[in-house]
């Protein structure tokens, strides 16, 4: 294995972050300070946290508290590799879901003289860069600093090394999952024939649901604390699971069991090695596997006017809306848009059903209903608005070369955002009504409110999405510049508060919310009417801004 090749491949992966729209790429100079800022920041923050806890530990005279902190650390250290394993698995899997659906065989590493070992190692390590590495640096530097006060620096060093190995283990597992998933889904598509598109869509949704149910169950509220307790106390009982061997190595080391430490350490290293070579073998066999062609339609071609045409959209606008609908149900990397409504429905449902601990008291149902009804559609409108232009990727030339006006572009994209988000709101509303049995007046008011928010915030985010679009597609579609997302989210939060404030006022005066100030009573429908006026003004102003941005976007034609 040539290590230089591995390093070069990793750097290719990390440098893909340079391709952000609007950056001058000629005579490119990279600020190393900025490149490592995130990791440096995590390290400084971790050290500060560790020193703060350590100083508190040293300074306190309460021996009971001191013992509690020591016991906590004693439980936390051997659990850390397993916790890092779980979180890294989630991060790397999420990154995998968002990867571009384009064929990767077009990338040079497949025809350059690079071995599968080098390729797999680089891919595995590159997955760790980012969120997994940041979390390890943050936690690692915190426990390193704290361990000085405990006099356990060797243990901390061992823990950090085990955490890094755990992240590698998680990333290798994701690599194996990725290759198998491509091969298995290929076989499923082949077997499902014409239904392959829907099999893929429903399969992806089911995967996301399963993934998030497990994730919430493990990490939400008391779940996270109990997870540490379970890992710390229970990993010895299930010692035969190889993924826990790194944690068991640490636990054995802390108990002073030298022989057991060596056995688990060697077993862990062997397991990582075996898993890595399984990944190499699978990559060599299926790495360049091309999934079979998905046949969507057969038979006679019969073009129709369709519902959109009857609703007053021109053929051009209807064509773009139909194309976008197909994009969001067929492109794997766009399907993550459905995560948000799933999260919003699943979390309270799991809470209600007692999966995440004690079910909430019945009086919280009103807020639960508001959460389910308002959240998904509105957040979806904001997300869709920011990404709906950038998701075009390299195919954006169709807009530049076709006779589409700024007015038509904004109209059809806005219509898609509103239609899609309203459907999600209706579905969530039905779920909310079934779960919380909300009263009719609250149901109607919240439904109107969520539609108002969708119209207003959809226009806001669309205007921003046109300006901040990013058409980079490989290795993952960026769709929108990060700064645009941040600014849009903040702006939407402020404007949503403004639209929702009359309803909050109503809730306060009706006693649903308690504040120490006496406010004049406001009728529910008056509150909704005021909200409607605010939303209409915001929607109008930002629709105009979106139009101006679209005009500039079509003139610039950055291709």
């Amino acid at each position, binding site marked *: 294995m040539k290590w230089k090749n591995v390093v070069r491949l990793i750097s290719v992966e990390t440098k893909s972050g340079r391709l952000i729209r609007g950056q001058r790429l000629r005579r490119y100079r990279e600020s190393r300070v900025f490149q490592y800022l995130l990791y440096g920041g995590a390290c400084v923050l971790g050290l500060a946290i560790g020193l703060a806890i350590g100083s508190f530990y040293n300074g306190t005279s309460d021996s009971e508290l001191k013992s509690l902190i020591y016991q906590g650390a004693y439980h936390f250290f051997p659990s850390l590799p397993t916790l890092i394993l779980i979180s890294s698995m989630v991060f790397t899997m999420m990154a995998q879901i968002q990867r571009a659906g384009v064929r990767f065989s077009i990338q040079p590493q497949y025809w350059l003289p690079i071995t599968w070992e080098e390729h797999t190692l680089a891919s595995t390590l590159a997955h760790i860069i980012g969120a997994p590495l940041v979390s390890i640096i943050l936690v690692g530097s915190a426990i390193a600093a704290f361990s000085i006060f405990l006099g356990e620096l060797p243990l901390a060093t061992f823990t950090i090394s085990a955490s890094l190995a755990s992240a590698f283990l998680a990333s290798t597992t994701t690599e194996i999952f990725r290759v198998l998933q491509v091969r298995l889904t290929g076989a499923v598509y082949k077997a499902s024939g014409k239904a392959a598109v829907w099999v893929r869509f429903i399969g992806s949704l089911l995967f996301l649901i399963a993934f998030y149910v497990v994730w919430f169950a493990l990490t939400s509220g008391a779940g996270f604390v109990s997870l540490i307790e379970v890992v710390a106390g229970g990993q010895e009982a299930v010692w035969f699971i190889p993924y826990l061997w790194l944690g068991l190595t640490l636990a054995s080391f802390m108990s002073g069991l030298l022989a057991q430490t060596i056995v688990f350490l060697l077993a862990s290293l062997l397991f990582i090695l075996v898993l890595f070579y399984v990944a190499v073998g699978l990559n060599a066999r299926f790495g360049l596997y091309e999934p079979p062609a998905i046949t969507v*339609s057969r038979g006679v071609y019969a073009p129709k006017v369709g519902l959109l045409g009857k609703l007053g959209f021109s053929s051009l606008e209807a064509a773009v809306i139909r194309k976008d609908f*197909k994009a969001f149900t067929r492109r794997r990397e766009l399907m993550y848009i459905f995560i948000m409504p799933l999260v919003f429905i699943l979390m309270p449902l799991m809470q209600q059903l007692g999966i995440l601990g004690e079910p909430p008291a019945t009086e919280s149902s009103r807020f639960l209903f508001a959460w389910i009804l308002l959240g998904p559609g509105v957040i979806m409108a904001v997300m869709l608005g920011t990404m709906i232009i950038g998701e075009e990727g390299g195919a954006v030339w169709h807009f530049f070369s076709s006779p589409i006006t700024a007015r038509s572009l904004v109209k059809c994209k806005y219509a898609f955002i509103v239609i899609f988000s309203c459907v999600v709101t209706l579905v969530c509303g039905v779920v909310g009504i079934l779960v919380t049995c909300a009263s009719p007046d609250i149901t109607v008011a919240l439904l109107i409110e969520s539609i108002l928010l969708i119209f207003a915030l959809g226009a806001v985010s669309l205007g921003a999405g046109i300006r901040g679009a990013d058409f980079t597609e490989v290795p993952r579609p960026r769709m929108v510049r990060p700064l645009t997302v941040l600014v849009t989210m903040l702006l939407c939060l402020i404007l949503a508060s403004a639209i929702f404030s009359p309803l909050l006022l109503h809730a306060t005066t009706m006693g649903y919310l308690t504040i120490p100030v006496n406010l004049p009573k406001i009728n529910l429908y008056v509150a909704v009417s005021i909200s409607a006026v605010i939303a209409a003004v915001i929607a109008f102003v930002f629709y105009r801004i979106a139009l101006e941005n679209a005009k500039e976007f079509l003139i610039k034609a950055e291709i």
Partner: protein
Amino acid sequence: MVSNGESAVELRRVAKRYADIVAVDYIDLDVKHGEIFGLLGPNASGKSTTLKIILGLIKSDSGSVKVLGTNAEEDPVAVKRQVGYVPETPRLYEFLTGLEYLDFVGDIYAVEMSEKKMRIEEHLEALDLEGREGDMISSYSQGMKQKIALISAFLHKPKLLILDEPLSGLDPKSARIVKDLLRKLATHDVTTIMSTHILEIAQAMCDRIAIMYEGRLLALGNMEELRQKARLPGSDLEEIFLRLTGTGDIREVVEALLK
């Protein structure tokens, strides 16, 4: 060159810079109605930028662009309605099937329903894509994608075709069909401007050829006029091209590479 009022495309003193790089350097160009016009030049000579300026994809820094009697910078949408365009590396919507993609393009250009159906079916049959039209484009070969891009450019019966490397990746039969189709369209007054690096194709197909180099027009005319300009009577387009662009003395370069 002076416009006689019959040009399909008129460029006057058109210039475009990217920071300190001159992409197009004050060129004048007239392309007549029903002409097959070749735009040649080495890499980064300004061909693609010129084609994009004609289509209104890029705004020139100075000069005027008239396409089919319309100012391309004042009313780009009117120009785009009458133009069929195939970029150098067309990125299609890979999640659509070939048929869905062509249906999408037909609707974008507001092609009437029955005509759209007829034209799509005819073109799919002519370019041997029948039987694969229901498959997602992601499973198509490069040549098949190029065929779909070409059909989408022909679909709305444009008066001007702007084709950047149109025959790239096509099999010999399909390439022949496209060449014959372009010639036939020229007789129906459809103008074609094509850019290609395959000089044999340009020589065989184009009525007139322009050779660009570093953003400037080095030569413009039919084969005979180009031979005269290069002072190479009886020579082919490759020799003329290499002489005019100053890349003729390649023997030394090859020998240096072999060392």
